[in-house]
């Protein structure tokens, strides 16, 4: 221990037990009875402590590597094989990818539908979410209403899917009855026809996740600088001009985070889609993750599934990079700051 102190110049790690021969000023070292300043005092991370921190990190990192990094390499390996449970795996090179990009219309279609689905969900969720947040902000009912609005988010997407499946049902669904009564729909239920099924899914997503945008926007609204608002009002701005000139620019980082999170969640979760339509009718809602699910776990073409999964992962990772960049940007640091 003592030698470590002498060579490393870091004292903090050895303070307990009083074995530290110097112990007065960090950075000073005693050699042969002479105390000298060896180097700049260690500020935060003295060398001996580093190993200790790595030991603390190791269990989590190793676990994570075992359940995510290792499967990732396995995924790459699978995508280059014809994976067959019975006959064994056969190397086929890039054939899986070749098939996806040249012949598989469901693949390209799946991407288009996924983007369409996410764009529709996001557009309505952001518009509705911001509107509701602005109306709720500083209202008497804010606390109560927000608590109520949170409820759909706590529900398992699969259960939400089942409840909406019931509401949409063409013979006994109340929402179907309502839409029929106001003349929006005919006999066929909203999920039954290829032209409306996507709208049916988007409605469920809006129902469940608009509250998240409301919450994020409310947090943003609380941090719009008052002086800016007041200055703008002195300049003669009304409430609406104030919103577009001061409030909205201040909300952008919040909204961006909300949009990216929701966008990635639309890639991540397909629970309600699987239950409501399973990709049908006539592939009208066969968004890519659903197609991937079918290929892998209905037809058990795990090799082809792996190739699709890789393309999906690459796009998510690129999106994730954007998100992390925003997290790290100065604007976002302002987002995370607690009110003060």
């Amino acid at each position, binding site marked *: 221990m003592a030698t470590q102190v002498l060579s490393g110049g870091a004292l903090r790690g050895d303070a307990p037990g009083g074995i530290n021969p110097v112990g007065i000023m960090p950075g000073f070292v005693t050699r042969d009875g002479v105390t000298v300043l060896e180097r700049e005092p260690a500020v935060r991370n003295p060398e001996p402590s580093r190993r200790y921190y790595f030991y603390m990190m190791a269990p*989590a990192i190793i676990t994570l590597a075992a359940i995510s990094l290792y499967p990732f390499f396995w995924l790459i390996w699978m995508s280059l094989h014809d994976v067959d449970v019975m006959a064994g795996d056969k190397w086929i090179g890039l054939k899986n990818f070749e098939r996806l990009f040249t012949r598989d219309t469901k693949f390209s279609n799946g991407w288009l539908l996924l983007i369409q689905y996410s764009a529709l969900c996001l557009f309505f969720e952001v518009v509705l979410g911001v509107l509701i947040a602005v109306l709720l902000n500083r209202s008497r009912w804010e606390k109560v209403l927000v608590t109520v609005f949170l409820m759909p988010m706590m529900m398992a997407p699969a259960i939400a899917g089942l409840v909406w499946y019931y509401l949409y049902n063409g013979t006994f669904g109340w929402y179907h009855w309502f839409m029929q009564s106001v003349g929006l729909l005919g006999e066929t239920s909203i999920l039954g026809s290829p032209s409306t099924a996507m709208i049916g899914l988007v409605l469920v997503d809006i129902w469940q996740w608009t509250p998240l945008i409301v919450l994020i926007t409310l947090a943003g609204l609380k941090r719009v600088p008052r002086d800016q608002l007041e200055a703008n009002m002195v300049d003669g701005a009304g409430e609406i001009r104030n919103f577009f000139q001061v409030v909205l620019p201040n909300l952008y980082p919040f909204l961006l985070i909300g949009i990216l999170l929701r966008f990635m969640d639309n890639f991540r979760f*397909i629970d309600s889609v699987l239950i409501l339509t399973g990709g049908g009718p006539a592939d009208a809602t066969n968004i890519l993750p659903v197609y991937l699910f079918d290929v892998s776990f209905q037809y058990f073409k795990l090799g082809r599934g792996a190739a699709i*999964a890789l393309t999906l992962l690459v796009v998510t990772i690129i999106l994730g990079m954007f998100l992390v960049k925003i*997290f790290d940007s100065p604007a976002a640091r302002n987002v995370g700051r607690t009110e003060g």
Partner: protein
Amino acid sequence: MASKDVVEYASPARRIANVAVVIFLAVYLLWTVLPIFVMFVSSLKDLLEAFRIPAVGDWSGIALFFDFQPTFKHYANLFVNLNFGVYFFNSVAAALGSAVVSVTLGATCAYALSRTEFRGKKDLFFWIISTRMAPVVAVMVPLYAIFRSLELVGSLWGLILAYTTFNLPFAIWILKGFFDNVPYAIEEAQMVDGATRLQAFRSILPLVAPGIGAFLVLCVLFAWNDFLFASIIGSGGAKTLPVATKELVQPQNIQWGSIMAAGVVTTLPMMFLGLLIRRYLVTGLTMGAVRE
């Protein structure tokens, strides 16, 4: 109003706008609550009552919705005949197991990450967070292949491991933000007083305990609400509530009363937990990017 010093004059336009706002919020409130309300009410209806619906355009027929004899037989049916006690236990075990593993490993890792700098830390961090962002289906393809060869498919252990793929990175990421807010000076002072590093770490745990508890609850919530992993990795021996509920949907005979009752059983505990950690919800759901 009377307590206000300044009497505000509301112009007619203003008053109309106020009414419009109230109506809009009321409609949105109805839209939010209605599916949940229908779920609760339908779980208390007998089979035929649940299928009754007025003629198209018959608005007074809405009363039909409330015209029923409440019965708890679907709940009894779930637990007596349909084995939901076991599924409930599976859900609790899988969710709690992965949450405890994730938060225990995650907290130590997050603490270390928060207190040390090294080359490649940013890359390590990005890798951790990208694991969390990966689409569940995409992760499941290789995981299924690996778990099958390890005979983990259909076991609670497999499910716990599967949930840890998204809960552990979440815990690390979000708890690091928590430890970042605890000044290092506290541990420093402890160590000057003769505490070891481990003792110093333990001394700051009470400060972050509420946060750690809240994110443990969130991990439970994420795992509990999962359907995809449970339907594939858990299929067979480790059926959880959402999967068991989905399986009540059969082509011939959809038992809506039982499905809605199962929905209530699955949803109610999570709504309660959500309220419990209300303060940390925004932080948790935005991966720590936004604080209230």
